[in-house]
């Protein structure tokens, strides 16, 4: 709607300009370029928004045999930062609450593998990295 009105206005203005000089054509091209840019920006924002929302999951995707603790820690922390609902994450088959092998699901911290008996929280829905 917002763009339709300027479109109509542009049309009328273009007609007037066509009757007068060729400089009007240059102006309309600039206007079109600006509109195209704005459209591209607007069309990209919902995609990014959907992507951000899609990242909301508690369970970690498959990370087989990631021995590099640094990378593991970084990826794990990044994924956990976007975690929200553990229940919806459970609807995917190959996800687990913590990607650190050997660590308790209730203590997903670096070095937790050294002692599976230690836990940092009592409710899995409130466990954060």
């Amino acid at each position, binding site marked *: *709607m*917002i*763009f*339709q009105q300027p*479109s109509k206005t*542009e*049309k009328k203005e*273009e007609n007037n300009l*066509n009757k007068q000089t060729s400089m009007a054509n240059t102006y*309309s091209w600039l*206007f*079109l370029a600006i*509109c195209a840019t704005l*459209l591209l920006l*607007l*069309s990209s924002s*919902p995609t990014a*928004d*959907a992507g951000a*929302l*899609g990242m*909301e*999951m508690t369970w970690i*995707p*498959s*990370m*087989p*045999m990631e021995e590099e603790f640094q990378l593991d820690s970084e990826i794990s922390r990044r994924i956990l930062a976007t975690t929200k*609902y*553990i*229940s*919806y994450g*459970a*609807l*995917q*088959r*190959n*996800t*687990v609450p913590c990607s650190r*092998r*050997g*660590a*308790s*699901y*209730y203590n997903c911290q670096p070095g937790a*593998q*050294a*002692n*599976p*008996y230690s*836990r940092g929280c*009592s*409710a*899995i*829905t*409130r466990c954060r990295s």
Partner: protein
Amino acid sequence: DEFGDRGENVTVDPSLVFQNDRLRNAYIALQAWKQAILSDPRNQTTDWVGSQVCSYTGVYCAPALDNPNIRTVAGIDLNHGDIAGYLPQELGLLVDLALFHINSNRFCGTVPHKFDRLKLLYELDLSNNRFAGKFPEVVLRLPSLKFLDLRFNEFEGTVPRELFDKDLDAIFINDNRFVFDLPDNLGNSPVSVIVLANNRFHGCIPASLGNMSNLNEIILMNNAFRSCLPSEIGLLKNLTVFDVSFNQLLGPLPNAVGNAVSMEQLNVAHNLLSGQIPASICMLPHLQNFTYSFNFFTSEPPACLVLPAFDDRLNCLPARPAQRPPPQCKSFFSKPVDCNSFKCKPFVPSPTPSPATPVTPSPPSPSTPSPTTPVTPSPTTPVTPSPPSPSTPSPFPSPTTPSPFPSPTTPVTPSPPSPSTPSPFPSPTTPVTPSPPSPFPSPTPPVTPSPPSPSTPSPTTPSPFPSPTTPVTPSPTTPVTPSPPSPFPSPPSFPSPTPPVTPSPVPSPPSPTTPSPPSPTTVPPVHSPSPGYLPPPPHSSPIPPVYPPQHSPPSHTPKPPPSNSPSPPSPPHHSPAQRVYPYLSPPPSPAPPCIRTSSTPSPMSTPSPTPYLPPPSPSPPPPPVYVSPPPPPPVQYSSPPPPVYHSPPPCETPPSVSPPPPPAPVYEGPLPPIVGLPYASPPPPPFY
């Protein structure tokens, strides 16, 4: 062994030296497991050799809890291992195990009974494997278990009610083949999250759900629940996710849901709900996504239209886009819904308040109110003797029994939690605490019928003074059973009636005596103070929906036993119900038969197909008895489709070591339905 579990013969090399006996036992367990593994495409168990078991891949040691000087195996984590095989009973030797994670492997069979020796097991993650058979009851005998994950397997049958009496924090049993009704003691579970999605549960959503005060997230999506929604959902103050989409729920969306103040994701889409959307729900402070599409709602408050995300398509809302055609709505409304017809068990508050009840009567008995207390039971007992004669002697010992009763009441309190049926126990516990209510519960059922109701006013007529006492006594006695629990649920729902604790029993009498409300309604206002009667009117409005189900309990009581006995025929009955709602039904596949113990070592050396044919274990035989017919094609496909991922491939695949497919899919299944903002792209301006 006698349970049909399989084991391996492990010979310990005499030359091996272990730090302690526990590591020696761990060696035996792990070697047995290694022999039971048929396929290990990533060679994770290659280093399972020698006495250094703490260096094995996936094995995690720590100082033992009972002896810090002893190093022992504390965790097994083979998540995403893609290993095929079965769990030998020797795993029961890992007595210090706290976590057992084997998500995304191809283990089949069942959980060995020897698992009950794992007294410290805290986390059991068997998800995304090929286990089959009945619910593994050995998990009910794990005293330290908090995290139970059985999702994405082939378990079938019923979920034992004992599961909801365990002190668990998380229950994930979605994407299996569980059927039948949910046990009515669901509300006893103290879990913070429970996911039952993508099974074939049907029947009622237990009203005891209202007792799950620790619950944060619950997903019952894509089952065959067919009942009205219990209004007790509003009692869950910590609930953030409530998803009952893709079921056959009927009736209204309770206004009480608006009391679930922490709600963030509410999804009731794809049901048969009708009526109006309560404004209280759309005004929840933290509600982010409210999906109620594909129902028959007829009214929608403006507050719903300004939520961050909502979906109201395919309803019967006037002046809204993408609604159902009028004839479809008209046809649906031609058959009114009677929530009582489902005969769901009424809400019974948790037994936690019942131990508080015995504490309350003990102080009043020694004080001045003690003469009032005997006065109350004395008129109660005369009413009681009219229906049952054995209750006659109880009025005489009643003044003596109050003092000894509190002492037996205290030990009675712990006994309710021990029995597996706390739902019926809390009601007898409450009457057991006060002697008068104990005989009254038996007359309570007869009082409920119309014949006993005229008998109640007859004792009222004799004398004016005892008459107000008598009607007050029986009416409070009946609510005495619910009145102690009623203040607990009523405070969260109505903060204003919370302060008048005394009037809380007064309002409860008129609501239970709905058939005879005129007479008790008249007498209580005259006898009781007007401010005490003021709270009853607002309180009575929510109470009626709770008490009408009380009529169903007497009829429902005899039904549970017949429903249990015809449980085998109920699957065929369920199949037509499944046909009625064919959409999203999981494809039925036969349970994969597991390889026999004796043949296990031979496939390691020479995996030939011949030994696999004869070796069907006794556990697989029961699963083939359960064969559900193929469901018809789905009628409609919606925007939030919850894809059901089952692994039909039998355990015959594990023997084929050559094709080990790694679990590549990272993002599967549905995420919470989020409706983004609609962007209407304007038409491109004309070019000249």
